[in-house]
């Protein structure tokens, strides 16, 4: 790493210098980029959980009856199996898979004060598309509409500050994986090298053209030529330092034999080998558990089993190797999953989610208590408590020692610290930051249209329409548009509330539109269809003439 450029460009360091000072300095923002700072060798490890991790079955609201009865009748983790870990008053427990790994896995990390649990991380107007929401998390930008393009990643923009510098010895970022991530895309250059196997990369590094070729012209052709030439040079250049670090480094701790563990083992070894890379990203896929998610011992449990093993081995390894003061990790997933399970024994794309941070330097706490206390912001998705950009900002400012000016440039704004204090031990309070997001209150009024649980509520987005209406012969078609998987039962009552019978027995329907031919019982007049859709009730008037 070109340390001088870090010092030059990231202004204030850690601890005593602190961030508050920035607000008081009376110099122009641009000058603040050139403050001297302590040297900072801090490293960030990002663990991507692709597909949308089911936060509710990760940190379980195990004392919440709705979790068992309403939301997860089939997919809950049994209360007796889940592991209480925090203040019992919070009513939360860990998935038993999180005890897997050395020293009791992630549970052990919590016990040894090396794990933050941040509940309810998300953003305004959540997008439920994998691509879009992944792009949002990677870009660090919450777009004002679906069309806004998100061409760069927050770490790409962060490392753009060095774009005109000579290549440092170590790449700024390494993504252990095969496809480039938007996360590292800068305005012009990518800050990350894709790495799967250092030996292979080293061989590949030899296969590419490694010399800078000066075409001696300035043209569109030379623009594109130089770009490709640069990619080759970067592979060649970094493949050597990566190989050197790999050969020099070692692992002490044992790792589980699986993909994520292998990735994190590689990261620990490169850190130990003296690579100065600031950010490593590793990933585990398969969290898109729309069907067959399973309860205890199911697919999701197995994923957490791998996660816990990998993170706990990694943490123990870097402790034994002597680097743990300089390394923190976070887990990131594009969204959580919906509280309601679906009829395919899975869960659908949701919103606010749990995020973990681990390392010697994180505050070993549960932030955001219990997701059970989060209201729904629509009929089925959780509201969020913390903006994910708060975490990015804290990483840049506290962990990398960047100026608040730079972090604001990268994120396009300022964000509250998690619970005003942040998840890193060395973060200091900053009164100049904006307020935390407002979590809407749960509406308990049974007659309020804003209470999604109200039996009177007709604010659900599911739509039921009968046609023709009026019907001459009692025959009609009921159109149903369902947005979530739900059990439907339809009973007919007359306008005086007398039950005339069941038109449709309870049956599970998937999201979609349906046209169901029906026939009214009884004579002419006003009839009311009482439609129970899960816990909700809808009433449709049908007139027989």
């Amino acid at each position, binding site marked *: 790493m070109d340390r001088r450029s870090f010092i030059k460009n990231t202004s204030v360091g850690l601890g005593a210098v602190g961030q508050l000072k920035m607000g008081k300095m009376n110099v122009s923002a641009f000058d603040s980029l050139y403050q001297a700072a302590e040297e900072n060798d801090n490293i960030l490890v990002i663990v991507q959980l692709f597909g949308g991790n089911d936060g509710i079955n990760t940190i379980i609201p195990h004392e919440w009856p709705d979790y068992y009865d309403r939301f997860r009748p089939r997919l809950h983790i049994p209360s007796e199996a889940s592991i209480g870990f925090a203040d019992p008053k919070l009513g939360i427990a860990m998935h038993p898979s999180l005890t897997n790994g050395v020293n009791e896995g992630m549970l052990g990390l919590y016990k040894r004060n090396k794990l933050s649990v941040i509940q309810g991380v998300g953003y305004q107007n959540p997008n439920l598309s994998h691509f879009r929401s992944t792009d949002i998390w990677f870009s660090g930008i919450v777009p004002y509409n679906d069309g806004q393009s998100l061409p760069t990643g927050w770490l790409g923009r962060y490392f753009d500050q060095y774009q005109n510098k000579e290549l440092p010895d170590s790449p700024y970022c390494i993504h252990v994986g095969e496809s480039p991530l938007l996360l590292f895309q800068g305005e012009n250059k990518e800050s990350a090298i894709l790495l799967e196997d250092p030996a292979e990369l080293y061989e590949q590094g030899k*296969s590419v053209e490694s010399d800078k070729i000066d075409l001696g012209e300035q043209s569109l*052709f030379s623009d594109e030529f130089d770009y490709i030439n640069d990619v080759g040079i970067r592979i060649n250049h970094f493949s050597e330092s990566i190989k050197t670090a790999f050969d020099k480094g070692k692992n002490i701790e044992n790792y589980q034999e699986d993909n994520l563990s292998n990735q994190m083992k590689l990261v620990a070894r490169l850190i130990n080998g003296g690579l100065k890379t600031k950010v490593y990203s590793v990933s585990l896929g398969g969290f898109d558990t729309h069907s067959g998610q399973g309860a205890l011992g199911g697919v999701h449990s197995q994923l957490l089993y791998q996660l816990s093993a990998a993170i706990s081995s990694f943490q123990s390894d870097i402790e034994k190797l002597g680097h743990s003061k300089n390394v923190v990790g976070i887990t990131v997933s594009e969204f959580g999953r919906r509280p309601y399970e679906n009829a395919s024994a899975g869960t659908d794309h949701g919103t606010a989610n749990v995020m973990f941070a681990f390392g010697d330097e994180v505050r070993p706490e549960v932030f955001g208590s219990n997701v059970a206390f989060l209201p729904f912001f629509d009929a089925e998705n959780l509201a969020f408590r913390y903006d994910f950009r708060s975490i990015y900002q804290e990483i840049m400012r506290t962990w990398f020692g960047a100026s608040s000016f730079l972090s604001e440039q990268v994120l396009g704004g300022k964000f509250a610290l998690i619970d005003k204090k942040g998840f890193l031990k060395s973060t200091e309070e900053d009164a100049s930051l904006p307020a935390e997001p407002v979590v809407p209150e749960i509406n308990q009024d049974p007659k309020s249209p804003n209470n999604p649980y109200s039996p009177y509520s007709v604010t659900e987005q599911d739509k039921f329409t009968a046609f023709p209406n009026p019907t001459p012969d009692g025959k009609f078609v009921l159109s149903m548009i369902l947005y979530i998987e739900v059990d439907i039962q339809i009973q007919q009552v007359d306008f005086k509330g007398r039950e005339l019978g069941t038109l449709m027995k309870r049956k*599970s329907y*998937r999201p979609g539109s349906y046209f169901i031919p029906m026939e009214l019982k009884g004579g002419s007049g006003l009839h009311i269809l009482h439609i129970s859709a899960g816990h909700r009730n809808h009433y449709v008037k049908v007139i027989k003439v």
Partner: protein
Amino acid sequence: MPVASKTLNRRSFFENLLGSSNELAINSLEEHTTPLTKEDAFHLLKRCCFSVDLAYAKTLVGRKAKDVINELITNAGSLKVGLPPFDVNQSFRNPNLLGGVDYQLERNKNLEFHFAQNKLLIEWWLDLMKADKRSLSEKITFLWHSHFTTQYDGGEPIPAQWMYRQNILFRNKFLGSFKSFLESITIDGAMLLYLNGSENIKDAPNENYARELLELYSVGIGDGHYTEDDIREAAKVLTGWRATHWVEEKEVYQPYFRPNQYSTDEKTVFDTLFKVDYEVNQQNAYKNAIQRLMEVILEKKGTEVSVFMANKFYRYFVYSKTDNFDHPMVQELAKHFKNNGYDTKSTIVKLLTSKHFFDPNNRGVMIKSPLDSLLGFSNHFEIDTQTLRKALIDFGQEPLNPPNVSGWKGYRQWINTKTLPLFIDTFTNIINAKSDVEVGSWAAKLDGFNDSYKIVEDLAVLFFGRVPKESRLKKVENALLGGAPYYEWPEIAQNQANAGIRVKAAFKEMFRMPEFYLA
């Protein structure tokens, strides 16, 4: 978003001094009338065909660009498009009508069909791309596919039967009027499924398609281009259409209109009132809703549409750098597009026969997409179609499966620290798998085969964006000679196996060179 300091590097300093580099190419859409040289012919064919036919390229020398383009268009009609190897009329049982275990079984069965058949369909298309060496057929078909994106494997998999029909639609419309393109794609079955048009009904208008229609397919995103209200109202205009492949329903594989799901409300899109003062049936709805909406889009937002599309055409055929709506050539092409009733044919012809297109400064400036790279190479050293499809997955450009609705980003995304060594590795494996004799006899057909420098020049013409300076070409020649003096080449070349070994070595040098990834 501006980040950190913006000091000028040496290049931007000179750019400012000399003016932007784009201005080096002549900015004129006037017809390039000089007879085509060999270089012109290769430039043209590299941009118009995935596979360049060497013999054909030679026959184009001395002809006029306009005649050649017209020929490439005419030839498209005679490309033989057979049926893909599965039942394109196969319908499926609707698992939603079944309960419990049966639901899952039936659904899994359907999914197996959809995945297997779409793979076959992709390979069917790749075979067509391989075969098409003398027409614009596949480049244009792929242009429409990458514009009107539909992803078979995004969310709920789309049956190959629908994807096939959409592909045929692109072929039938080919270079027709853009308006009729918009009309047809709106009620195309794959599109109705992909962007939820099938679920867009009066009681619950689904805005997905309406949004993409404006944002990605016609007007484009931009200040004042359209409002959320325009989207909402356009969605209502488009209500009522449905596509089904369920055996239990009628009108299978025939998108149709459901009058009772059509919103008869008054709607306003781009300040134009849509009134339902006609009998609600399929014919009237097509005319008064679909056709009328496209008319209004082009009437009210014609300038935006034409600039948006001209930029697309420009990026596809001339220079793929990110959007540049202000480029004088994009602006001029847009005017032509608009003034000619949004006729895609005359617009594409205008572009491909222009002085700007043939300007030497616009040659070799395109970063090849994986399709361009792999098909271009397969044209000489066959890559079997299954391997080709799998390689395209690795490189992120599997046809019928763009990453999302906004399509492939293209340009520099194609070359990164993963793909560049992967390309080198892939091409090395392909050439290594060919016998020395095969490579040697292939090379023997090159004009310059008997001269070590001329043969590498020939290779550069075929595979490089530009024939490099002598000093760079010498590198390839040195690899070819492998230490032997140049005057011994004719003797080495006598033996086809020996020649093959040497030409392979030359190729491996070429795979490393940036020129190889440009066209």
